[in-house]
């Protein structure tokens, strides 16, 4: 091997080693148990990524979400959010089939049909009134069901995308590569629509998280708190224990 290349490899190797948290010795069983429960061997590296994401969020994402909230009244935002959620239902149904939950998949499809038609392209969520409640599944959850464990492997903070783990990184890339809406239509208009959808999804999600993330930032160790929250939330999603949430629609903004 070329000497420079060799030096580079050596440098990378030490860098990686420095980026890993050390496993507590056998003599400290409780510390060891905690280490494996936290499941964050890449913590030093993850904390750096977290800090970069945090700065990016403060500079760009949060202000954008604030502006979105400021300029669009709440019912309009709920309508937009409903459209975004509605577009995720075919994927959800596919994953429910993969997880062996055909009745749930049927409900997801029925919900999609009702809200896409009666609900005018998903703007209004009438399906909930018919007992077809919101639901969400993704490849990460399917992989967890197949593996029979909520343990998703080492915690990973992705640049820009935030908290994840080995399983969910894998699941997410499959979901991105197999998005059903990417197989329909072509041309500049369709491309523009796709970009609009992704951007709206990001801003909508961030807008809903304004208060929770503000609270998180006040904590003693926001990184550790978020890691715990992510792991708990994913476990609940996988076990289908998260209560269905209908988007909040407050009509009282209209003069009575």
């Amino acid at each position, binding site marked *: 091997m070329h000497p420079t290349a060799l030096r580079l490899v050596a440098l990378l190797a030490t860098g990686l080693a420095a980026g890993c948290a050390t496993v507590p010795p056998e003599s400290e069983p409780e510390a060891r148990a905690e280490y494996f429960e936290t499941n964050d061997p890449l913590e030093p590296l993850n904390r750096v990524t977290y800090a970069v994401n945090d700065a990016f969020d403060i500079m760009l994402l949060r202000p954008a979400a604030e502006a979105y909230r400021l300029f669009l009244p709440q019912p309009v935002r709920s309508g937009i959010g409903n459209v975004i959620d509605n577009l995720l239902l075919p994927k959800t149904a596919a994953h429910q089939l993969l997880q062996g939950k055909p009745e749930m998949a049927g409900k997801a499809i029925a919900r999609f049909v009702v809200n896409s038609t009666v609900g005018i392209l998903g703007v209004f969520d009438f399906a909930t009134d018919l007992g077809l409640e919101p639901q969400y599944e993704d490849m990460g959850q399917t992989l967890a069901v197949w593996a029979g464990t909520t343990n998703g492997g080492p915690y990973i903070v992705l640049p820009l995308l935030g908290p994840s783990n080995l399983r969910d990184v894998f699941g997410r890339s499959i979901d991105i590569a197999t998005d059903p809406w990417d197989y329909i239509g072509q041309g500049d208009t369709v491309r523009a629509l796709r970009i609009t959808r992704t951007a709206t999804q990001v801003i909508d999600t961030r807008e809903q998280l304004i208060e929770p993330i503000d609270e998180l930032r006040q904590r003693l160790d926001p990184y550790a708190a978020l890691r*715990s929250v992510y792991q708990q939330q994913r476990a609940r999603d996988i076990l289908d224990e998260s*209560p269905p949430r209908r988007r909040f629609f407050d009509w009282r903004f209209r003069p009575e």
Partner: protein
Amino acid sequence: MQRRVFLTGLLAALPVTGAWAEDRASRAAAFIEAQGKALVAVLDSDTPLPEKRAEVARLLREAVDVRGVGQFVLGRHWRTASEAQRGQFLELFEETLVRNLSARFGELQGVTFEVGRAQPRGEDGVSVATTVNRPSQPPVMLDWLVSEASGRPLIVDLIAEGTSLRITQRSEYSAVIQRGGGRLDVLLDAMRRQLAQLEARELASN
């Protein structure tokens, strides 16, 4: 009242073996209902801030197993802590719980709540679901874990939108201690600083 009638109906419909668990569940639900009403009454009252805070602190001590939760939250560090450190920690922890509420007195004006299903969770206690409504805000789902381990019902955990507060808190405190070289005093100092911040926020918002 309606709920009680419903529960009684449910009780009658259940086989005898389930009756005891059902009894425990309805006790927990009634407990949360009563404590919640008392808290809302204080929040909506016109009493000045310091008295309001003192009143909330009293309710909290009555309803929450502060020592039990504190011990859980400190985890393995509880055992290695000195008696003085434990005392300081519990004091700071309780103060943090109170200040977290009192910093939000403004936002909490006019909240209402409904008690939903109560489900036994084995040895952990009974989980009581509540929906909290704030004026023109989306409702929040809070599940209260009520344990009778001490002989009377006490809150041992709050699950906010699917996230257990005591588990998150334990994870966070443990990270603070670990990053402080395994010293509990680092956490205690950090908690004191956080309390000072919460106090400043309370003065600013109320």
